């Protein structure tokens, strides 16, 4: 008896394809290693994450340990990640907000628990509620004011966070403040289609938008690919096979002998001494002020900028850590835009804590840890209290928690639906 491979193998391809498609309907948090990955896969319209979710990951670990396939470098920690009805990471029930924070993964708190995010800690330090609007890539005034309107913030602070390595792509032109003029990350297809759905009245267009969104999500996330990649990573453990993922993080050794992982992008030397552009920021500040809001720019140093002097062997001798953010800080100060550059306080504090074996960033992650966030919150509060303009913009707040270090209670979002994942 002869088996016809011409029939068998195409069917096999079809079976694998169908399995792949079916698995894409699985809840994404089953196959992701951190909650923000799961929640970013299907974000709410205008938000950065899926709305009204509460995830609890008891075994979360750092992004660099995951990217570089270094299981023995994982530092496990409890991660709770709660989103509100707008698709932003806010564990507290909605209140009267005094400030809103926009920015990237540092601002929304990748790798840290709900209770330790910058808005949560800043709220503690200031004694005011701070809304976390980070993660959606909002840049232009229309997007920012859209959020402030939705949360009812008519007076207060708008804090725009930027991490050092992203300053290369920061908008430079005042026209970027106008809605749609600057798009740092082009909107994904489903957002564009969904936008079409909103703009048009046609049922067909809305259906196309919805369909496009679902199709793109399904296309983007393949559990079968994730499972097989994990299997592949398990084999590429530097014993059975060399670890080809290792180059996605750079291992450094500190002078005390501790290891620390760095994101390769951090180590890239800034070859050009670009002038620090302020046009975007001054225009944004003007626009926000016209709506009763005051802008504060927050510059977060890369981990390498803070720790490069504490490395036993330099990882990027040609790099000029912090130069670009210092330049921007000076330019913004000259232009009258309030700015907090965390480089100085982070470098000093990191050196001080280093003697005790404590750090401001996770060692297995490119992001800061709760201790680093606390320093940032205190620094923001210090600058805000020392700036009359900012102080005036802040509505009357309650008392800050004792020393700003009181134990915070974890609260679940108003419409949060509890679920957990291993």
């Amino acid at each position, binding site marked *: 008896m002869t*088996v*016809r*491979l*011409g*029939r068998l193998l195409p069917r096999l391809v079809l079976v694998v394809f169908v399995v792949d498609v079916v698995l894409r309907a699985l809840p994404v948090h089953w196959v992701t290693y951190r909650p923000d990955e799961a929640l970013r896969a299907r974000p709410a319209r205008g938000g950065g994450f899926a709305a009204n979710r509460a995830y609890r990951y008891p075994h979360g670990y750092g992004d660099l340990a995951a990217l570089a396939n270094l299981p023995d470098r994982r530092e496990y920690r409890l991660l709770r990640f709660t989103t509100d009805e707008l698709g932003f990471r806010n564990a507290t029930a909605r209140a009267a907000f005094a400030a809103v924070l926009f920015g990237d993964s540092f601002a929304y708190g990748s790798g840290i628990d709900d209770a330790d995010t910058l808005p949560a800690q800043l709220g503690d330090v200031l004694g005011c509620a701070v809304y976390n609007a980070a993660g959606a890539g909002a840049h232009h005034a229309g997007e920012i004011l859209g959020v402030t309107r939705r949360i009812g913030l008519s007076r207060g602070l708008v804090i725009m966070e930027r991490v050092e390595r992203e300053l290369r792509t920061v908008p430079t032109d005042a026209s970027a403040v106008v809605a749609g003029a600057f798009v740092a990350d082009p909107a994904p297809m489903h957002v564009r289609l969904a936008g079409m759905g909103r703009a048009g009245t046609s049922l067909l267009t809305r259906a196309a938008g919805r369909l496009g969104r679902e199709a793109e999500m399904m296309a983007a996330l393949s559990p*079968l690919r994730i499972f097989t990649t994990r299997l592949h990573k398990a084999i590429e453990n*530097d014993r059975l096979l060399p670890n080809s993922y290792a180059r996605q993080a750079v291992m450094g050794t500190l002078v005390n002998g501790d290891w620390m992982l760095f994101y390769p992008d951090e180590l890239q030397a800034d070859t050009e001494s670009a002038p620090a552009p302020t046009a975007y920021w001054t225009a944004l500040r003007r626009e926000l002020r016209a709506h009763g809001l005051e802008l504060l720019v927050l510059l977060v140093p890369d981990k390498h900028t803070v720790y490069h002097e504490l490395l036993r062997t330099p990882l990027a001798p040609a790099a000029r850590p912090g130069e670009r953010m210092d330049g921007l800080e000076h330019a913004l100060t000259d232009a009258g835009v309030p700015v907090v550059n965390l480089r100085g306080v982070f470098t000093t504090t990191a050196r001080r804590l280093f003697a005790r074996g404590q750090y401001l960033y996770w060692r297995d992650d490119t992001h800061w840890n709760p201790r680093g966030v606390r320093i940032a919150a205190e620094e923001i509060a210090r600058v805000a209290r020392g700036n009359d303009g900012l102080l005036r913009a802040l509505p009357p707040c309650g008392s800050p928690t004792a020393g700003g270090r009181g134990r915070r209670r974890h609260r679940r979002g108003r419409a949060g639906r509890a679920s957990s994942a291993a």
Partner: protein
Amino acid sequence: MLFNSLAFLYGFLPVTYVVFWLVRSRTARYAWLAFTGYVFYAFWNYKFCALMAFSTLVSYLAGLGLLRWDDRRRRRLCLVVPIVMDLALLGFFKYTNFLLDSIRHAVSWLHAPVVVPPPLEIVLPVGISFYTFHTITYIVDGYRGAIRPTRNLFEFACYVSLFAQLVAGPIVRFRQIEADLDAIDRADRARHLDLGWSFFAVGLAKKVLIADTIAAVIDPALARYGELSTAGAWLCMLGYTFQLYFDFSGYSDMAVGLGHLFGLRLPQNFNSPYKAVDIADFWRRWHISLSTFLRDYLYVPLGGNRRGALITYRNLLLTMLLGGLWHGASWTFVAWGAYHGLLLVAYRAIAPLWDRQPAWLRRAETFILVVVGWVLFRASDFGMAATLLGRMFLPQPGAAMAGVEVLTITVALAAAVAWLAPNTFELRHRWSPLPALGVAGLFALSLLKIYGSGGTPFLYFQF
């Protein structure tokens, strides 16, 4: 797009296949295959589609000229113009910077007061070495009267841009698939289907399970070749020897299989080359479409072996030097070609003596000579080649290699397949249930590996 990618298996191949068998007319099938060839090519760089179209059109018109004219002068024009144009394009894209670099080094070495222009920003169009040779064989064979050039532009475009052999061969001559192209509207789908999938599955497993596994270990090890021990250097080069064979012959098997799915029988490109008992035998078995091209379009026109020993040796050396240069714009490839040229000359000189040895010994000796040659082929420069050869032949310790056990097992398995098993063309491709299950299992494993690690490019795509 790679044959070993999900986009190809889930999208390109099914659509191309279904539409091909839905359309009935010959010209429609030519047009469809030509169109899909351009789509396939556009996945790398759509801008170079125009270059391929231009080369196709010029050769097609030259073919029409050969059909129409009988006088020697015009026919010669139809021969020379497209070949010069093809070679000029190939030379510009592939060898300009090589030439500039070589001149710069020579000028620097001689301290000559000559300003050499800086390197140009040239992107090498993928597959140009292959489709250029397709069009050259077509024109030369048309000129010689070995084929009758086609009047059907779509048939010719289909021949040049057939996706199965577009970017890494085999170098198919028009006469080799002319009959199948003529009968493309009468192709027997059922007869070709099993054969096509059988070739494809075996080729995919060779590439994904063997070649890629070896590459996963030796690539990082060879990146630090200065730290290899003698055993490590030999293991890496043995690994590379089998990686290259399983990668390229796997690709060729897949190409042959894909050709069958569309009723086209592409020629054999590898005939168990590591079973060769001498170096001439090796070249009759390795990359057959290239070696026969070099033989028929270079070695024989140079005079072959008809003009005495010295001229034969010169022809062998020249042919192999150019064969080496065809592989890449680097002096290491030229040196590799020269090495094989010298081996062929030496074999010709001592053939009676060599042939007196037992077959197993000749096979082993030939294999080792080939492995040593692959050092030049793999090395990025002569420094690397010298270091690797030094580490192979002068015993010395070195750093431990990650994955050495897996590499040893895979190389042993690959060697057993290469030396003991029949090659893909020797298989009957009639599978009883148990072997069929094995093939299906290997195919499924390959698919999952593609999911897990993504498809890796074939080594010969760079040429």
